[in-house]
């Protein structure tokens, strides 16, 4: 049940961020968010919107959902408080490095499968150390995201038994690469 509610949450946030809310005030935005939260769970002929989105997207990682939540919160208040651009750039870089490490080998390029690390205790320890480094360097956004991934993994919030699925998903990886390329293009323009 909790994985269904989790899926409902990320579908709600996704839709909220995709819809234009320019002229709406904070109260109307809050009402829209609540309405979307209900709408994604209402079944039509036994199938709700969450089931349709989830079938295509898979379950988004906790890192993604935290990012979506911060971005959604940014529609109510100054985004810089939760996810300042400089910090999300670091997050994008971290995600991109992790994706390059994980996906090619996992998809069959080598006999060694980094996805296996997600069943071991070493990856959680590495992530905890990463949280420490991120705090030390002032990267609160990444630190908070990774710590929430660890907490969600500890209670098995998702169906997965593998920590990688809490940290990363292909959509997040795609967005991270997009952000990096966009920043690079802006930087050189």
């Amino acid at each position, binding site marked *: 049940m909790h994985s269904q509610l989790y899926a409902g949450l990320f579908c709600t946030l996704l839709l909220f961020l995709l819809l234009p809310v320019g002229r709406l005030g904070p109260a109307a935005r809050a009402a829209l968010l609540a309405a979307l939260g209900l709408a994604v769970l209402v079944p039509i002929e036994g199938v709700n919107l969450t089931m349709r989105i989830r079938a295509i997207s898979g379950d988004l990682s906790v890192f993604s959902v935290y990012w979506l939540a911060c971005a959604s919160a940014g529609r109510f208040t100054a985004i810089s408080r939760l996810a300042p651009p400089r910090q999300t750039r670091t997050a994008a870089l971290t995600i991109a490095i992790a994706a390059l490490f994980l996906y090619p080998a996992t998809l069959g390029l080598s006999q060694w*499968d980094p996805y296996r690390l997600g*069943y071991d205790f070493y990856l959680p320890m590495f992530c905890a150390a990463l949280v420490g480094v991120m705090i030390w360097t002032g990267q609160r956004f990444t630190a908070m995201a990774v710590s929430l991934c660890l907490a969600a993994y500890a209670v098995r919030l998702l169906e997965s038994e593998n920590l990688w699925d809490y940290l990363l998903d292909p959509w997040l990886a795609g967005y991270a690469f997009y952000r990096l390329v966009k920043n690079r293009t802006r930087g050189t323009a």
Partner: protein
Amino acid sequence: MDKYLANPARLLPLVVSALALLGIWQQQPDATDWRIAYADPHRQADGETAGFHSQFVSSASDLFVHAASISALPDGSLLSAWFGGSREGGRDVNIYGAHYDPATARWGDDIILASRESTEKAVQRTIRKLGNPVVSQAPDGKLWLFYVSVSVGGWAGSALNASYSIDGGRTWTAPTRLITSPFANISTLVKGTPIYYRDGSIGLPVYHEFLGKFAELLRLDADARVLDKIRISHGKHSLQPVIVAASSGSAVALMRYAGAPPKRLLASPSDDGGKSWSTPHKTNIANPNSALAAVRLENGDILGVMNDLDDGRHQLSLLRSSDNGENWRLLQRLEGHGQGQLQPRETYTRQLEADFIDSAGPGARALWQEYSARLDKRVCSDDLCRFIYDYPYMIRSPNGDYHIVYTWNKSFIKHLRFNQAWLDTL
């Protein structure tokens, strides 16, 4: 340091991480036991007469059926499962099953074990199609059903579902989704017989078809939670592994080959219970990119069922290997017609009728009439038709009998049952 003392909330992620780490550590499973729960194959009683029997498992004449598996149940009966519908990948495809009653030596009616709708409801995702069911009786009494479902795209978009029965397959738990891939959990399929470990965990041979084609061993606990997965091969050419154990430590994975000629069956041995696998190599038997089945014999030989062809699936053979799958000797041609070329419908129908009656018995004339009136795109294109015998699955039941099920011309699931005495005559 002062900035952290001034604002301790900055340390919140570290506190959360530390608590999470403690929780994760407490949940870490005990050290994995890699000893396979291997039991020497049953020796048949001396003096038993040779027995070989064939019949159809499925009974619908108008369904495309495929990918059968079979399991012996504790009461001496059998359960076979397959998928069937109007076409492969159709939205009306269900996972079907049937029970075999040893007292009457007959298969019962087809029953639906899982449907697209029941799977959707259980896993809370829309499902486009179902496929490849594997039924297997675990030593702890659970009868497992693993099967594939696809939400988006072709078979490369597959994910695994697992449910179990504790009443011999009459009722099943709601299926749970196994998360086995970081890429939106797509592209894990099942075909081979599971192995069981001494600690009660399950070794499920699986394969991937998205971008690459490679084989893995999924390690599941006794409740089908994923504990680990071990790569048997990598790259783009190996799939549908069948694991044949020889002892608690040694096993060989035999795999379908999807690469360039020469097309040969692939083999990859393991001498540590499946914890690691040597690089797959080509054996000396042809494999036309088709599935196989195999079991270990009591003298250590391997008995295999496969399409021993360079191309096509018009011939299915029983073979024996005395060197862990490297070389194979033909024991019996189980099915076979011509060179695999398309045949005119009239010639084809005559041969098919003889085969059908041979398999289903003379009492099945009515079923033949029904079936032959619907010889359609399952095997025919315009007025040309082809024989196809593929996707074999083989087990040895506790009474020592061998059981093979396979797809018969995409139209029926066929069951072969024979004993050691029959095998010894070959």
